């Protein structure tokens, strides 16, 4: 079954999915569907339910309500539990711990799922060689998992998962145990493998940078709920909630609480924007990108004075963070900038806010 050859039905369709563990609801009414060949990233802070969602996709947990369909076929549902067994849904899972079988060699680890699937010997051997080469670990074939490094174990885990050519690849925070440099390397490696296999991938991470670089579709999860689902750029441009707005993006965006005074919204005694942006609201939260906050006073633009906290050079400019009471505000300075912590620094809001949110967190459409 080749994922690219399927017809109109979405490769993965999740409808009204709920998962409860006793009184605790880990996943609340999730609806997501992606076409074949997509790279879906589930991103959110730890404990948001993203791993549980992935385990339900893998067939390791049954949902409490709702259903999951792969290419139009229901594989799990609240009523029927796990309908198609984990092994029967043509999906592969890369575990966070890699879960390599310690008593088998690298080649043995990759070959075993093929043995279980009753591949003939020759075809099996050929495929093992192929994936070993694809991951660049041919030299390790006869080693045991305990004898190779973490990064190599990671490659073996991926090789083992893609060997049976599943049409759906599931990744559970696969890069979280690697060091920063290796993580970036493996990120491109994974995308290469995703393209090479043509499978539909679901990738769980708490790292928003991974989500933004790899995904064709992103679902931001928080407290078991999908806060927003869409293309990465779309989420960045039009965040639906304050959670999404502050969770995604580098450098982080600023969210300023403002009160209506007269016909203006005022932040910390500084009038920022006309009250017309949010008719009927007495209090709002204003989203300013770091790019839209300049360091130093700018004529005709509202500005506040904050206490300098830290500076980090980024691509020829400097990201400056200052404290205003308990609120962190991040802006960009041209060139290199430095100051002593605690120094007064003026921050100017050179554009109108990128988005306006109600106090409850939802976006107010302008």
């Amino acid at each position, binding site marked *: 079954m080749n994922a690219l050859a399927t017809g109109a039905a979405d490769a993965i369709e999740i409808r009204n999915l709920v998962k409860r563990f006793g009184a605790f609801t880990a996943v609340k009414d999730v609806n997501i569907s992606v076409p074949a060949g997509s790279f879906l990233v589930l991103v959110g802070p730890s404990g948001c339910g993203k791993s549980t969602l992935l385990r339900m996709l893998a067939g390791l947990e049954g949902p409490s309500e709702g259903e999951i369909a792969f290419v139009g076929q229901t594989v799990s549902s609240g009523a029927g539990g796990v309908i198609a067994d*984990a*092994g029967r849904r043509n999906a592969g899972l890369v575990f966070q711990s890699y*879960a390599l079988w310690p008593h088998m060699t690298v080649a043995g680890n990759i070959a*075993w799922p093929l043995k*279980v699937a009753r591949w003939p010997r020759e075809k099996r051997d050929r495929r093992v060689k192929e994936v070993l080469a694809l991951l660049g670990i041919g030299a390790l074939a006869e080693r045991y998992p305990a004898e190779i490094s973490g990064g190599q174990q990671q490659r073996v885990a991926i090789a083992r998962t893609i060997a049976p050519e599943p049409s759906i690849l599931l990744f559970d925070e696969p890069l979280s145990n690697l060091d920063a440099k290796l993580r970036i390397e493996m990120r491109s490696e994974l995308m290469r493998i995703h393209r090479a296999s043509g499978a539909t991938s679901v990738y769980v991470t708490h790292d928003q940078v991974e989500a933004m670089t790899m995904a064709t579709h992103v679902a931001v999860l928080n407290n078991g709920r999908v806060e927003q689902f869409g293309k990465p750029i779309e989420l960045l441009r039009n965040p639906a909630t304050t959670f999404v707005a502050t969770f995604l993006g580098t450098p982080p965006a600023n969210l300023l609480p403002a009160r209506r005074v007269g016909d203006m919204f005022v932040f910390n005694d500084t009038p920022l924007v006309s009250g017309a942006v949010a008719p009927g609201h007495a209090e709002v939260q204003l989203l300013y990108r770091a790019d839209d906050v300049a360091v130093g006073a700018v004529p005709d633009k509202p500005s506040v004075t904050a206490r300098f906290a830290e500076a980090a050079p980024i691509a020829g400019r400097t990201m400056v963070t200052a404290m205003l009471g308990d609120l962190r505000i991040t802006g960009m300075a041209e060139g290199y900038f430095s100051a002593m912590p605690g120094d007064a620094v003026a921050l100017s809001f050179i554009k109108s806010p990128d988005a306006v949110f109600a106090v409850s967190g939802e976006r107010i459409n302008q």
Partner: protein
Amino acid sequence: MTFLSTFAPSGGRRLFRSGFIMPAVLIAIVAILVVAPLVRILLSTLTPEGIAAWQAVLASPLSFNLWWRPLFNTMILGFGVASGCLVIGGFLAWLVVLTDVPGRRLLGLMATLPYMIPSFAAALAWGTLFRNSRLGGSAGFFETNGLAIPDWLAWGLVPTAIVLIAHYYSLAYTIIAAALSSVGADLVEAGQMAGAKRPRIFFGIILPVVTPALIAAASLTFAGAVANFAAPALLGLPVRMQTLSTRLFGMIETGQNERGFVLALLLIAVSALFLWMSDRIVSGRKAFITVTGKGGRTKRFPLGAWRWPLFAIAVIIGLLTTVMPVLVLAASSLAPQSGALFSNWTLHFWIGEGGGEIAQGQAGIFRNPVLIDALWNTIRLGLVVALTTMLLGLALAYTIVQRRGSLLATILSQLAFVPLLVPSIAFAAAYIALFGAPIGPLPSLYGTFALLVIAASAHNLPFAVQSGRSVLGQISADIEESARLTGAGLIRRLFAIIFPLAIRGLFAGAILVFVKMVRDLSLVVLLFTATSPVLSMVAYRYAAEGFMQFANAITLVILVVCLAASLVAHGLQNRVQKWKET
């Protein structure tokens, strides 16, 4: 070059002191404790008398009775007990760790209890129930109540094997359960994702991963059965069934020391051979270091309709091997006629005055001054040995870990593990060979409390080092190093950092040593004399003379001491490390 740097001006002396003296002292201690007795026993069989003894044992008309017959019995016992323990211990471990059986904690606790009960308790209980009238004396409970017990079930190999399985299966359980719970859920789920069915996952993944543990469990229970003295002595000797350990005891008891030493060496060879072989098999495979997944979850398989039946089987095994023996011993210690366990109960055997009709005028155990002496001696022995063992173990483990990879560490750790290969009764024989006669100006230690302590500490060395290492393993190098950066010296670090963190593990280890000593018979049976009686020995004496009720009563006292120690330990453990609330 490292030698030169040792003499660097700053702190050179301290380096020298802690870097050289301590290992040297440790090597000396271990050499005296372990190497000297073994070398001595070997040498004493190379004298003319010794050579004659070798001949008598291995190549003479006597050798069938002295060596081949006991060897055969010993082997049968070893293999029988090892396989029985694997089956029962493995079954329970599988049930508790890998399934959704109800009451898993309870079952797990019950499976670890039999090891706390001395093997002679089970042997005595067996005798109380199954003894038949073939040898005269009063018959056991079953025969008295009209159930004829055939000889093979009353005496000899079969009951000995059953009693030893009932004792050692909990050791197998502990080892296998630990291995099974290290098989992370991820490994199993990865198999599920590959589409493997449950049997395939069990035989293809779980079983191979725990195979080293299975081999270890088999070889340790084998070694335990081969070395055991109490069960074959109580259930086999009356019908002249000899194992190597009872033969060895008989030889030394009757003054034929050289023959005893030869048998001890042969017993060591047999036991060491099997342990060494299993070690080869295990280390020939790859050491399976599993990366445990999130929180070390284990996958529990649903049993479906089998949940309660399997639970019932596990509970019955637990009851038969823990509660039953204790109840039987308790009832027997109250019943004047050993056949009628539940009638005419009397406290005579506990506190009765002597001179009456019952028990040929013997007084109750608490009227016996020897017993009070023995009780005190036993507890003292347990405490002193626990202390020496844990201190020695910690020092050895620290040195070994600090100098990992050096020749010194290798020698120390190898030497410290030698006693594991030596059955305790053979070890005791070696101590008689070494300390039975005065050495130079030193008086003969034979029969003194000191000899018991030294021999027991030496015997417990492998365990001590093991638990010392696991205790130190819980203290990461960072913690110690961060203390070192503050400028604290070794002693200061030891008391301020290492001790508080290690105390819980040390305590657990010390309690185990204490319990082991209190219920030990095979080590003390040769080293004990009238001046240093211990409880287990007094019980064995009573049993050998046919006063079963007294023996049973003393065994109960031993059980109570062991149980009390465990409870005290449990209570204290939760107190000493308050940040580890359970």
